[in-house]
């Protein structure tokens, strides 16, 4: 993207690296990374324990909901903090979320397919 000097919306800048480990508008600290790492490790341990705890047929739905919830939570932590999406502008977040939109669309199609026999 070439800068247009006459455009008020674009200001040519060179981003500076700070090197002081402090939080600026677009830089998380190392403490944040280690906190996320600890949370991810803890959630992985919980994930492994879930199929052991909810191993009966009657609590199968609880197991599924818990595991999917944990996986989505972990994926969001990686995307937001390690991939810096938390500090990005909405347009970049929309690009990143495109597969999620596809997933929602696909689930809607599958639900429609499941209920199709009910419609005369």
């Amino acid at each position, binding site marked *: 993207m*070439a*800068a247009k000097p006459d455009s008020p919306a*674009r200001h040519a800048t060179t981003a500076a*690296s700070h090197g002081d480990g402090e939080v600026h508008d677009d830089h998380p600290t190392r403490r944040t*990374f280690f906190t996320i790492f600890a949370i991810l490790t803890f959630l992985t341990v919980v994930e492994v324990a879930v199929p052991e705890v909810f191993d009966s047929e009657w609590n199968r739905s609880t197991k599924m909901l818990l595991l999917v919830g944990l996986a989505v939570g972990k994926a969001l932590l*990686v995307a937001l903090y*390690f991939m810096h999406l938390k500090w990005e502008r909405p347009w*970049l977040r929309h690009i990143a979320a*495109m*597969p999620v939109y596809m997933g929602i669309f696909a689930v809607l199609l599958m639900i429609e397919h499941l209920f199709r026999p009910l419609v005369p």
Partner: protein
Amino acid sequence: MSASHGVATVTTDRHFGKATGGKIAMWMFIAQDGFSFGALLLAYGVLRIVADAWPAAGVSVQDILGINLTAFATFVLICSSVTMVLAVDSAQKADKGATVRWLLATIAGGAIFLGIQAYEYTILSQAGIGFANSTWEGQEVNALFGSTFYVVTGFHGLHVLSGVIYLCFILAGTLRGKYTQGGLSYSPVELVGLFWHFVDLVWILVFTFIYLL
């Protein structure tokens, strides 16, 4: 973004902020790669839902797949994500030594993950889980179990392998001091980082859908 003497410069954009062109392009690549994984996982889900028994009558997925070993591989990948983010942070601070160390740690994490996957494939194939036909302790297993397992985890494994090779190239550049000159020279390290975190993110989903559910 424009390149000047090999160092990227960036403009502040109304829609993308300070994101470089390379970063936007990497995100677009990641999104389309996400479509590929999404399609594979959706196909896996549909095949599993319509199957009479998965993987076989009276046999659970956890009976066949080694959850503890894979959980360890998941932990290794999470660790490598942390080392990657620290490599980007070090490159941003123009600290060449730390960047090299963290990149090496990330490459080691990826190599360990690939080693575990190769070991897992060997054990499973010896136990009778094939790509097209599978048996488990003399009992016939749904043929799609092996197919979907190897396709999804294999596709992810190829991404890990690509990531390790990509990281080796970035490491070579870092050793030459290309990415630790200050300013936006760290940008290529950030881009490989995005790809590596994506590989980690996808594995989190694959681990849940293929191994735990």
